[in-house]
């Protein structure tokens, strides 16, 4: 049986304490959860200061933050853990990433050579036009542009072939559905340009060896026309990626 004054004290409800987890002032925003500790408790439990007197119960300060709501807790799982990769899958994933990195390197070089190709092809078409004009357009047949055109043509062909091989042999580790997009249009244009480049090499040699023949001019004219068409296809194939 309780002593009367202790019984009265037992009947009284103790004043509400500030919860020990409260750390931040009420005006502060909720502390963001750090990535590496996303499932850990944001605030470690502080150590309790020794009580001043066993019977002294201090009232909670008015500015104390209310307890962190249980509803803010992200410790739940509605979907089940996503399947972690097993050892074999991890090895396969690493291999895919290696191939992806190789692909990226090859395609970066492909882009750089593509820009170089556009520049060299422009120079080549210009020199080829001047060469045709010099021989068949009233330029006096001085042959001033013949060697320059030959060098620019070989350079254009070399860069074109290298670039094409880079694209053909770049690994493709991720599944890719076939569809009509800028990549497909680029490939079609460059395939047509390849046909034009091969024709140009043949026509160039033929018209160069037909000196003095009546049909040299005809071959040169065809070479000029196919050259313009090939140039247009090459430029369009590069610019399509801007759209």
């Amino acid at each position: 049986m309780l002593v009367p004054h202790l019984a009265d004290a037992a009947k009284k409800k103790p004043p509400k304490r500030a919860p020990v987890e409260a750390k931040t002032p009420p005006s502060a925003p909720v502390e963001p959860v750090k990535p590496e500790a996303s499932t850990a408790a944001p605030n470690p439990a502080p150590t309790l200061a020794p009580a001043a007197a066993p019977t002294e119960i201090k009232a909670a300060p008015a500015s104390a933050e209310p307890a962190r709501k249980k509803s803010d807790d992200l410790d739940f799982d509605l979907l089940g853990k996503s399947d972690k990769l097993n050892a074999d899958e991890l090895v396969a994933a690493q291999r895919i990433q290696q191939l992806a990195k190789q692909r990226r390197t090859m395609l970066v070089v492909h882009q750089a050579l593509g820009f170089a190709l556009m520049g060299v092809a422009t120079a080549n078409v210009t020199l080829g036009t001047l060469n045709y004009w010099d021989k068949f357009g009233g330029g006096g047949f001085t042959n001033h542009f013949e060697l320059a055109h030959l060098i620019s043509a070989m350079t254009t062909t070399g860069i074109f072939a290298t670039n094409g091989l880079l694209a053909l042999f770049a690994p493709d580790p991720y599944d890719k559905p076939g569809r009509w997009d800028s990549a497909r249009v680029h490939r079609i244009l460059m395939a047509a340009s390849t046909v034009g480049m091969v024709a140009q090499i043949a026509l160039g040699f033929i018209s160069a060896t037909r000196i003095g023949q009546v049909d040299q001019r005809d071959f040169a004219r065809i070479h000029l026309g196919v050259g313009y068409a090939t140039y247009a296809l090459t430029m369009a194939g590069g610019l399509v990626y801007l759209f």
Partner: protein
Amino acid sequence: MVSRIVFMGFAFLIAASAHADDGVVYSVDSHASKITYTLVHKAHTVVGVAKKDIDGKVKLSKGDAQLMVRVPVASFDSENSNRDTHMQEAVEASKHPNVELKAVADGVAPGKNGKAVLKGKLTFHGISHPVEIPVDVIWNGKTATVVGQFSISLDAYKVERPSLLFVKVEDKLDLAVDLTISE
């Protein structure tokens, strides 16, 4: 006999109240939902949409909501297959195939239209960061749509920003969620 009936009655009440405490779980309708990303490059703006394989659940309980959504990065379609594979390379999709959102919100209840704020974490490229997403919740019977937008930093998730014509895309990635949930 009477005591058995009384006992079963109590058991039923306890079970019913326990179920009420557990809340109601809604599933994301993958065919009616979509998640969209927008990425800006100097040459053009890239928009990729995931309209399938969205796996998600929302649990409503006592005015609070718990949400979890997971979608494979390979589901995002920007209508350019080269660009999509480049995106998968950049986020190392073979090692981190999914992007996952886990969040909670207050003041969400069945039939209650209005705004809410999803507070949680987004896990992308194997890295988690806190996010806050203001959403609109609109109920239509036992179905609801949850629509919201937010932005993240690719650098914060350690994603190597893709480049085109030697120009990198901007760091900011805008995400828009349009989820339809049903019981």
